[in-house]
């Protein structure tokens, strides 16, 4: 821990530089989108300049329906992600620890996994109508596989010597999962979580947009049907920012939880 603390200033400096570069990239992108419609590269009626989008976005901040929609989206995202992560972790550990079970399910998983979540939309509409539940099913379906596959791989990657040692010390199956399997699979779990978090956000917005359950996606659709082009883009910017924010939070959690992991140590050492 002491050595990590000693390295911290350099790490922070590196992070500042990447944050600055990231912000510069975003500003550059915004400038291109500001200029392109003004000089007529794209029609200004359908691709408004960045400044107009930002003004519309700021105008939304004191609109109650915007915040309600944002909360709905975050709720569906968090709910779907939580279910997918817990189910993926539990089933992943089971499948990863029991080779027979794993062999029996691999084909089924490989059959189900590539089915796009949006293909389930007609089914969930008949079952639950345009409700949060329908969107939640899409989110869970998409995010679950991201988590499951990582956890299965993570569990399979556990050092067999460590596992045998734990066995010879007569650790109970639960204790083996807790003290040997879980810590060693944790990097994979965090990767699964990061992938699942992003996929869950995409499916939340898609579900709201297509199914019509409440949230930012539905607001985008309503704005589209009302021919409010600037508002459509303003809301799309919000979903993009949400994506960035979620990624930052998960990455931060990952760094804190896995500060002991060689991958993190190597990254810091190279700085």
């Amino acid at each position, binding site marked *: 821990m002491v050595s990590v603390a000693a390295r911290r200033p350099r790490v922070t400096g590196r992070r500042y530089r990447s944050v600055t570069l990231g912000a510069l990239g975003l500003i550059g992108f915004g400038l291109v989108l500001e200029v392109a419609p003004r000089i007529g590269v794209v*029609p200004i*009626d*359908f691709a408004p300049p960045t400044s107009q989008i930002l003004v519309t976005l700021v105008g939304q901040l004191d609109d109650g329906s915007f915040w309600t929609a944002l909360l709905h989206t*975050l*709720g*569906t995202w*968090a*709910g*779907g*992600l*939580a*279910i997918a*992560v*817990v189910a993926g972790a539990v089933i992943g550990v089971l499948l990863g620890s029991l080779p027979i079970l794993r062999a029996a399910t691999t084909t089924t998983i490989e059959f189900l996994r590539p089915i796009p979540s949006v293909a389930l939309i*007609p089914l969930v*509409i*008949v*079952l*639950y*109508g*345009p*409700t*949060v*539940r329908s969107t*939640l099913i899409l989110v869970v379906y998409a995010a679950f596989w991201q988590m499951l596959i990582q956890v299965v791989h993570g569990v399979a990657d556990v050092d067999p010597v460590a596992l045998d040692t734990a066995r010879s010390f007569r650790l109970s199956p639960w204790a083996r999962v807790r003290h040997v399997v879980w810590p060693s699979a944790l990097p994979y779990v965090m990767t699964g979580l990061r992938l699942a978090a992003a996929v869950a956000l995409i499916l939340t917005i898609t579900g709201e*947009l*297509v*199914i*019509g359950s409440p949230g930012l996606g*539905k*607001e985008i*659709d*309503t*704005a*589209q*049907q*009302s*021919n*409010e*082009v600037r*508002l459509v883009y303003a809301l799309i910017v919000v979903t993009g920012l949400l994506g960035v924010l979620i990624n930052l939070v998960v990455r931060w*959690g990952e760094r*804190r*939880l896995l500060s*002991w992991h060689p991958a993190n140590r190597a990254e810091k050492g190279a700085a």
Partner: protein
Amino acid sequence: MRRPLIALFTAVALLATAACGDSSDDGSAAPAASGKPDAVNAGVIAILDVAPIYLGKEKGFFSKRNIDLTLTTAQGGAAIVPAVLSGQYQFGFSNAVSLLLAKSNNAPLKVVCNGNNSTGAADDFAGLFVKPDSPIKSPKDLVGKTVAANTLKNIVDTSVRASVKKDGGDPSQVKFTELPFPEQVGALQAGRVDAIFVVEPFQQAAIAAGMRKIASSYVDAAPNLTVALYFTSTKLAGENPDLVKRFTEAMQESLAYADSHSDEVRDIIGTYTKIDPATRAKMTLPKWPADINRESIDALATAAVTDGLLKQKPDVAGLLP
């Protein structure tokens, strides 16, 4: 080291329960024995056509008939019809041709009251537009050309064909391409299609872009055409005729009120759409007669057969109340 992870999982799980909590009890339409109002869920589309039901809810036309109405906007009839059939919604809003097509597939649907009608005049809430410099002068010039329609094999192409036929052209020679309303003006400007058929507020966008209106196709399809209707499942109609009767009465009162209070209509449209006030003030509103124009539905059913959408004419009398 493990505690933050547990905290994270707990937080996420708590959010999950919060998110799932409200979706358990769906409104059911059980008869109100105790005087408790019937919870009714109606599926509508966020367009100006459904303004009367929003206005009627606000005016209390439903609550005074013991109906606790919840309005849910869905993305078009594709979601509304199955949701009504599966009982998610007790009532739904859909255009007349969609309902005729569903009826011909023996979908157990029953219309309960009128939705909205064309104005019957050249100044309608929907129109057929071409570019200002287009060689197309009237609908018959569309022969061999491509028209954008928001949904294919539905009320838009049926109506546009009616315009072409009325003008002396061969409607079977008009090509249609599917394009959502928000994309149509851009597609016309870019020359990707030769004509577009748009409803408000996109009609205002077409006018603002300088496009030329060559026909009001809903008007050409039939005099005072009933464009859309409210419907329910035959199951609910059979099990709870009293609820259907009360809903129909409330809806008819709402339609009549909306038809004579256009300022209130323009205001209420602002509550469930994002149409800006300037456009709302300019838009041409549909007509909202309380009664269904049966002749016009019959004309649409005949046109659906002529255009090849259907092999035989659906049972119009069985669909309508």
